[in-house]
Structure formats: structure tokens, C-alpha cells
């Protein structure tokens, strides 16, 4: 069976032109494959390149060498070489990403931020807003906050907005970068439930989970990410 998301010989290095062209290799020879309904936790010491790998998988970072193959519309799309418009389309339909930080859009209400990706996927506006409200409630975000822009929210509240935005559309592939970092135990449990429900529905998940308890609750296996200097 073709994995929902896989990499072939993925390598990534940064060249810092402003620092005399210093080249920093971060990833090398990464061969990752994630099946439908599977949750893979990236594992490795801090600075090993877990977040870089996540960003490469989302197409946010370009790949140095190798391929990043996403199962999109029944075919494999190489995010490393795809046209930007194809990447945007894949992100709209197939590939979701929950980062640690919410990029706040000025003046847009929380409910609309969560509903936006659903509307982009063709969900009727009213239905999208209803689903957004339900998910925000489940994540214990009080109703009085739903109509406000999240710029002034606390870190934990912003993260829950981010989670709602990532989980609401039901992407076939979901990338989670420390989704529970700023959450308390009660909310962590809700996130674990959300992840397990998504898996049950066939979502392929790649995540970075620093919290051992969460990781053990959701991850089917670990994928080692080693620092390049060590590996070389």
C-alpha cells in the first residue's frame, strides 16, 4: 500500500550567505514512511532537526536532495519539486499542520480563523462556523473568546485555537509540532483523544511530542532523527 506520506533520501542543509556562506547540514538520508491511520513520533535530541523535518514535510522548507511524496488526489505529489500552486492545493485538501505558535491574522475572530480552512475546502459557511464552535468548546475555550481575535490570548489559548484549526477540516495527513507544549493535563487529554479519533478515521500523523505521556498514548512507533554532525 502506498504510504500517505513518505520521504526518499531527504537531505537538507542551510547555507547562511550573511555569515560568509557557512553551510549547516541538518538532515541527511531521511527515509520516512507513514501509512493511513498511523501516528509516527519523531524522536531525537534537541537540535537534531525534528522541526526542520516537519517543515520540510509541510513544504515550508525546501528539500536539499531527495523526494517528499504526499498521497494527494490518489497520486503521489513530490512536495520538493511541486509547483507552489500544487503545494497550496495539497495544503488545502490533504495536508494539515499544527505548529507550536499561532500566526495571528489581524482583526479576524477566533471562530473565523478555525472555520477558514473548512470554507476553503468547500464546507458551507454556516456549517464550518458550527463545527469551529463545537471544536473550540471541546478544547475548553470559553464561548466569550470565540468572537475575538486571538492576538491577546494566552499561549495555551492560542495553541488550542491552532489545534482546532488543524483538526477541524479532517485532513488525510496531519503534522503536529509539539501540539501540547503549553497545555495543562486536562487539555492534553483532550488532544490525545482528538489524535486517536483522527487515527481511527484513517488520518496519517507525524508528530513531535516532548511529553512522554502524550507520546506513549498516541504514537504507534518512533522515527529516529539524528544530528547530522553525529551521523557523519
Amino acid at each position: 500500500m502506498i504510504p500517505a506520506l513518505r520521504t526518499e533520501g531527504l537531505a537538507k542543509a542551510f547555507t547562511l550567505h550573511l555569515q560568509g556562506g557557512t553551510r549547516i547540514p541538518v538532515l541527511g538520508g531521511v527515509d520516512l514512511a507513514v501509512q493511513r491511520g498511523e501516528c509516527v513520533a519523531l524522536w531525537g535530541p534537541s537540535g537534531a532537526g525534528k522541526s526542520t523535518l516537519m517543515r520540510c514535510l509541510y513544504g515550508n522548507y525546501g528539500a536539499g536532495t531527495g523526494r517528499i511524496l504526499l498521497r494527494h488526489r490518489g497520486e503521489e505529489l513530490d512536495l520538493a519539486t511541486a509547483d507552489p500552486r500544487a503545494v497550496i492545493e495539497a495544503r488545502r485538501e490533504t495536508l494539515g499542520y499544527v505548529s507550536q505558535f499561532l500566526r495571528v491574522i489581524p482583526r479576524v475572530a477566533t471562530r473565523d480563523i478555525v472555520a477558514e480552512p473548512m470554507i476553503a475546502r468547500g464546507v458551507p459557511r454556516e456549517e464550518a462556523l458550527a463545527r469551529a464552535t463545537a471544536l473550540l468548546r471541546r478544547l475548553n475555550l470559553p464561548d466569550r473568546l470565540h468572537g475575538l481575535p486571538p492576538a491577546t490570548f494566552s499561549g495555551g489559548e492560542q495553541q488550542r485555537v491552532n489545534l482546532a484549526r488543524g483538526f477541524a477540516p479532517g485532513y488525510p495527513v496531519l503534522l503536529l509540532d509539539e501540539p501540547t507544549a503549553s497545555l495543562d493535563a486536562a487539555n492534553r487529554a483532550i488532544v490525545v483523544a482528538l489524535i486517536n479519533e483522527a487515527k481511527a478515521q484513517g488520518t496519517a500523523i507525524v508528530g513531535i511530542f516532548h511529553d512522554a505521556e502524550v507520546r506513549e498514548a498516541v504514537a504507534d512507533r518512533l522515527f529516529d532523527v539524528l544530528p547530522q554532525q553525529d551521523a557523519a
Partner: protein
Amino acid sequence: MTTPLLTAEGLTLRFGAIPALLDVAIDVAEGEVVAIVGESGSGKTTLLRVLSGLMSPDAGTVRWLGQDVHAMGEAARRRLMRTEWGFVHQNPRDGLRLNVSAGGNVGERLMAVGARHYGNIRTEALSWLARVEVDAARIDDLPRTFSGGMQQRLQIARTLVTRPRLVFMDEPTGGLDVSVQARLLDLIRSLSRELGLSVLIVTHDIAAARLLADRILVMRRGRVVEQGLTDRVLDDPQHPYTQLLVSSVLAA
């Protein structure tokens, strides 16, 4: 994938010895927001003027739905400019008639394409003032009595009233206060999504480009030095100039 609405290839333009554009290629698809960023003098405004037919290149072609923009004749180009295209200027004074009321400004494009029913023109003008958050009570006021942000919103209403498919924007938030900028950016963002507009926006504001644009082109000395997905170009810049540009932005 849909074929692009606007395509340009090999655009070159020199002002004397100074190259303003060097072999620039760009295309814009339906519903896509494309940002052109770069420092002053990098040729981004010149590129916008050449793409919108206001200026002819020394070499290269610009095509709108396959038709050569610079070969189509002024009448056809003007018709395009008031129907399928729109242009939002940095200075609202360049895009508004300051001695004509807000309603007249919005209505002008409708009348230019043949609207001859006063009541309908007025209703349409009122609905557009509401969309750009200008108080309906100001419909008969002259734009010179408006604040800079209001003037810019009025210019956007005036441009969008005929439902163009592609809007060129030249530093639309250029002369505005930061607080007003955010409101305007949000307006551009929501309107372009709602209407499925294609937007080609020139800006030196990296944050604005990130907020609005699907794709980004980085220009320097008349060349496109880097282009691609907005967040990839800004988060993983490859060209030294892009790295400099991105690292120069103060994080708010």
C-alpha cells in the same frame, strides 16, 4: 491546474544605462495573490506598470488570457483596465477624484461601463462603502475630507465595484499608520478571498506579503532573484539578498 490569467516572459526595460527589468517572467492564476517584494529601486513598481500595460517593455511580452497586452491598442487596454482589471495606487490621490463625492467615485467605473440608472448606481455604491467599512452617511462627502486609510478603502471600493478578475496594487498600505495598515490588509485579504480575485501586489512590507500572498517574487536590480511559495521563500530563503531582506525585518 487552471491556465494562468496573466503571463509575462522575457521582460526587459532599461532607463538609459540603468536596467529596470532584466528578463523577468511571471504569471498569475485565477484567485491567486502574488506579491512582488524588494527594496526601493529594485524594479518592482516598474514591473507592475509594464504588466498592467501602463509602460512598454524594451523586450518581452505580457499576455492576458493569451492576448498580447502591449499589442492590443489603447482602447482595448483601457476597456480592460475598467472592466477585468483594477489598479490600486499607493497614493489614493492618484486613484480617486478628490473633487467628486465618495459615491461618485465608486459609481464612475459603473457609469464608464454603461450603467445609466441613478438609483442602482447609488445602491451599489452604498453596498461597496459598507464592504470597505466607510459609513454610509459619508456617501456624498468629498474624499479630501477623509482620512488616509478611508481614502485608500474608498479607492479599493472604486476599483472592485466592477468585479475585476485581476487587481494590481502598488504599495497599497504605503503611506498609512501601522494600525490602519492592519485593517486595510485584512480588508484586502478577505475581499480577495470572497471574490476569488487575483491580486498582484507590490510591497516592501514582508509581513504584508506573508499575510496576503500565496506566492512571492523577490526582486533586486531588475531581476527576480528568488520566487516560490510565500512561506517557503520567507522561512527558507536561498538567495543571499532574500536572506538579507528577511533577516532585516524586525520581529513584532
